[in-house]
C-alpha cells in the first residue's frame, strides 16, 4: 500500500473518528461494539469492494441494494421449498447459499451484458434492474415479509453470529474480500486492465484488451460479492422484504468515493474503499452511542463527509499537478 495523500486522507479521518468515539463513550472501544460495527460494515463492505472494480472501469451499478434483497428472497424461498425433502439440516442452508451466489453471478451478468453487448449506459441499465429487482422481491413477499422457516433460522444463525472468538464470520469474509480485492486490483492483469479501461477505453482497445469482456467481468464480480454478502445477511434476520437493502447502493458508492476512487474511473483504491465503509459505519455508531447529536442526523453528516472527501481529493489533485 502506497502512503500518498489520497490514501492517507481518509485514513486520518478514520483515526480521528475512532479517537472521537473513544472520548465520547468508553463503551465505544468494547469488543462487543467493535464486533458489532465491523459485522454490520461487512455487507456494504463486500459490495463496495466489488463496486470499486465497476467504478474503476468507468461503470456504475445502482442495482446492488435491490439485488441483495431479491437474492435474499429467492434464497429463502428455495430453502423453505427444499425443507420438506432435504430436511432441517446444513444441506438446505448450503442450497440457499448456492442459490444466492449463482443468482448474484447471473444478475451481475445480466447488468454487464446489457451494458457491454446491448451498449446501454450503465446508469440506465442498473436504474432499470434496480427497479426490477425491488419490484420482484416486493411481489414475492406479497408486499410483506418473506420469512425463513424457524428451525432453519436457528440452525443458520451462527453464519452471522458465530466465528472465531469475537471475530465473526462476516468480519472474516469482509477482510478476505478486501485483501483479495486489493491484490487483484494491484497485482493482477485483470486489475491493470480495469484501470486502463477506466482511464481511456480507446487506448485499452488499441492495446488488444478485450474491453467488453473485462467490463462484463467487473459486473459479474460485483454480482458474486452481492451474493456472498447476502449469504451472510440472510441468517441475521432470517427474512427479506421490500425494504431489505434499501440505499445500500448509495452507501457502497459513497464508500468507494470517500476512499479516493474517482467516479469517472481509472484509479481504483480497494483499501480506500474499506476505510470509506468503516468511516460511514463509525459515524452511525458514534451518533448512536453519544447523545451529542440526534442519530436522525446521521444521513446529513454522512452527506457532508462525502462532499468534503471529494473536495479535499480534488484540491490535492490540482496541487499534485503543479
Amino acid at each position, binding site marked *: 500500500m502506497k502512503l500518498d495523500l489520497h490514501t492517507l486522507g481518509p485514513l486520518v479521518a478514520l483515526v480521528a473518528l475512532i479517537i472521537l468515539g473513544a472520548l465520547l463513550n468508553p463503551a465505544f472501544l468494547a469488543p462487543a461494539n467493535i464486533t458489532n460495527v465491523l459485522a454490520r460494515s461487512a455487507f456494504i463492505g463486500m459490495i463496495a469492494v466489488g463496486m470499486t472494480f465497476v467504478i474503476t472501469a468507468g461503470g456504475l451499478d445502482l442495482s446492488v441494494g435491490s439485488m441483495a434483497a431479491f437474492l435474499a428472497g429467492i434464497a429463502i424461498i428455495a430453502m423453505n421449498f427444499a425443507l420438506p425433502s432435504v430436511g432441517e439440516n446444513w444441506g438446505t442452508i448450503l442450497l440457499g447459499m448456492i442459490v444466492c451466489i449463482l443468482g448474484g453471478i447471473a444478475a451481475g451478468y445480466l447488468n454487464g451484458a446489457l451494458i457491454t453487448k446491448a451498449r446501454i449506459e450503465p446508469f440506465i441499465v442498473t436504474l432499470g434492474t434496480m427497479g426490477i429487482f425491488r419490484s420482484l422481491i416486493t411481489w414475492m413477499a406479497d408486499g410483506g415479509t418473506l420469512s425463513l422457516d424457524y428451525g432453519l433460522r436457528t440452525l443458520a444463525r451462527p453464519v452471522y453470529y458465530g466465528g472465531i472468538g469475537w471475530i465473526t464470520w462476516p468480519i472474516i469474509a469482509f477482510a478476505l474480500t478486501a485483501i483479495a480485492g486489493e491484490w487483484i486490483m494491484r497485482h493482477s492483469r485483470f486489475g491493470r486492465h480495469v484501470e486502463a479501461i477506466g482511464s481511456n477505453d480507446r487506448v485499452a*482497445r*488499441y492495446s*488488444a484488451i478485450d474491453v467488453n469482456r473485462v467490463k462484463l467481468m467487473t459486473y459479474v464480480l460485483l454480482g458474486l460479492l452481492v451474493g456472498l454478502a447476502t449469504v451472510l445477511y440472510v441468517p441475521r434476520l432470517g427474512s427479506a422484504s421490500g425494504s431489505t437493502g434499501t440505499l445500500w447502493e448509495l452507501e457502497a458508492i459513497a464508500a468507494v468515493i470517500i476512499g479516493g476512487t474517482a467516479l469517472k474511473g481509472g484509479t481504483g483504491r480497494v483499501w480506500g474503499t474499506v476505510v470509506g465503509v468503516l468511516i460511514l459505519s463509525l459515524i452511525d455508531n458514534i451518533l448512536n452511542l453519544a447523545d451529542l447529536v440526534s442519530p436522525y442526523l446521521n444521513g446529513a453528516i454522512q452527506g457532508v463527509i462525502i462532499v468534503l472527501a471529494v473536495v479535499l481529493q480534488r484540491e490535492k489533485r490540482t496541487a499534485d499537478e503543479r
Partner: protein
Amino acid sequence: MTVLALRNVSKSFGPIQVLHNVDLALEPGEVHALIGENGAGKSTIMKILSGFLDPTEGELLFSGQPVRFGSGPEAEAQGIVVIHQEFNLAADLTVAANVFLGRELGGFRLDHSAMRAATAKLLDRLHSPIDPGTLIRDLSVPDRQMVEIAKALSRNPRVLIMDEPSAVLTHREVGSLYEQIDRLRGEGVAILYCSHRLDEVAHLADRITVLRDGRVVRQALRGELTEDGMAAAMVGRELQDFYPPKGNPSDEPALQITDLTVPGKVHGVSLTLRKGEVLGIAGLVGSGRTELAEGIVGLRAATGEIRVGGRPTPITSLRDAFAAGLAYLTEDRKEAGLLLDKGLRENLTLATLERFGAWRLDVAAEDAALDKATQEFDIRAPRRDMVAGKLSGGNQQKLLLAKTMLPDPRIIIIDEPTRGIDVGTKAQIYAFIRDLAAEGRSLIVISSEMTEVIGISDRVLVMREGRLAGAVEGNAMTEDNIVRLAMGVTGEAA
C-alpha cells in the same frame, strides 16, 4: 509601428527558467513565424503574448505601451486572438453557437438566424461547405479546425496567434487557410504563426524567429533562411542525413493483402509488403489510409484475404494480429495510444501484460523492460515515476513506439510516425524505422507529410477515396506525382 512585442522577456516556473531575454516584435501586415523544437519555449511565448501568463522579467508592449493583461479574455478584448492547437469547441453545440460562444447576438432571446448567417458568411470566405447548423461532434477533425479558424476571424483580430493551424488540415483546406492569411496580412493584421512544417514557414513567413532552449537564436527575413537552415538553427547543428539511406528490401513477401474492404471506407485494396521494406502510404486525410491499417490489424471489421509470410492468416481482432506478428502504432497518440494519466511502465506493458506473469504481475520485470526501452528508444523522462501525459510529444511518441515493439512484431504499421513532434526527434524516429527494416522487419508508414513519406519509404502507395490510386517508386517518388495521384488529377503522371 509594432502592435505587440516582447522586450527582454524571461519566464521561470519555480526554479526552471524556460525563456531567456526574448525580444519579439509583431508588425501589422506581417506574418511572423515562430519555430523551434518542442520545449523550446514557443507555447510559453504564445501564452505571454495572449495574456494567459505574465513574464517573470521584461515587458509586454501593446502599441508601444507596457501592458499587463490579467487574463486571456482581457487580451482578446484588445483584439489579440489565439487559435489553439487543441480544439476549444463545445461538441454538443452547433457551429454557429460555437463561433459566437460568449458573445451571442440578440438580447434575452438569442438571434439564431443572425448568428447562423454571419457564420455562413465566415465559412464561405474559407471556402468551407460546413453548414452552420451542424453539431461540432458530427464534424471531421479538419472541419473542426476550419470552425476554429472561422471563430478567430469573427473576432476581427488585430493580432492573430496561430499554433500549428494546418497540422490536421487536408491539402485543399490548407490552401484556404493560406488565402485567409494573405487577406488578413493585406488588412494589416499582425500574425504570429507557429509550425513544425518548415516548407509552410518558408512559404508564408515574412519574418522568422528561431527559438532554442528558451533563447532566440536566429531572426531572419523572408528568403534569408532555407528549410535546411531553419532546421539547423532549431537543432543547433547541421542535420546531415535527416532521412537515413534507403534499404535493400528482399523480394520475399512479408504481408499480402488481397481485396481488403472496410465497409464505407476502404474498397478492395490489394498490396504486397516485402520483407525488410518500408512501404509508404500517402493520401489526403480521409482517403481511408487509417481505416485500411485498422482493417488489416483487426481493429475494424473488414473482408478480404490476408497472407502473412505466404500463409493465409485470418485476423479478426488485434489479438490475432499480435499472434501473427503484426503491430499497429496509432496516429492518435493521446486518445488511442497512451494512457496519459498513467505511468511509463503501465503504458509500456499494457498490450503485452501476459508476458509479465500469469497471475501476479512481475513489476521488476516490467521495470527492466522500461529500462531497456528507455535506452533503446532514447526516451528522455525527467522522472521514472512520472505520468505519460507529462512527457514531451516526441518522448511520448518514442514511448508509444517502444510499446508497439514490445511484442516483437515482424510487420509494423506506423500511422503518422512524427505528428506534432520536433525536428530532432523526427530524425531519431526515422533512424529507428530504418533500423527495424534493416533487422528484416517490414514496415508500412502512413504519413500526410510529403517529404517524410518520400524520405523514409522504399516505395509509396497513394490512396484516394478508399482506393489505391497508384504506386510510385525510385525516381518517380516526387511530391508532384504523389499529389497528382492523391487528388485524382489526370494528365501526365509517373
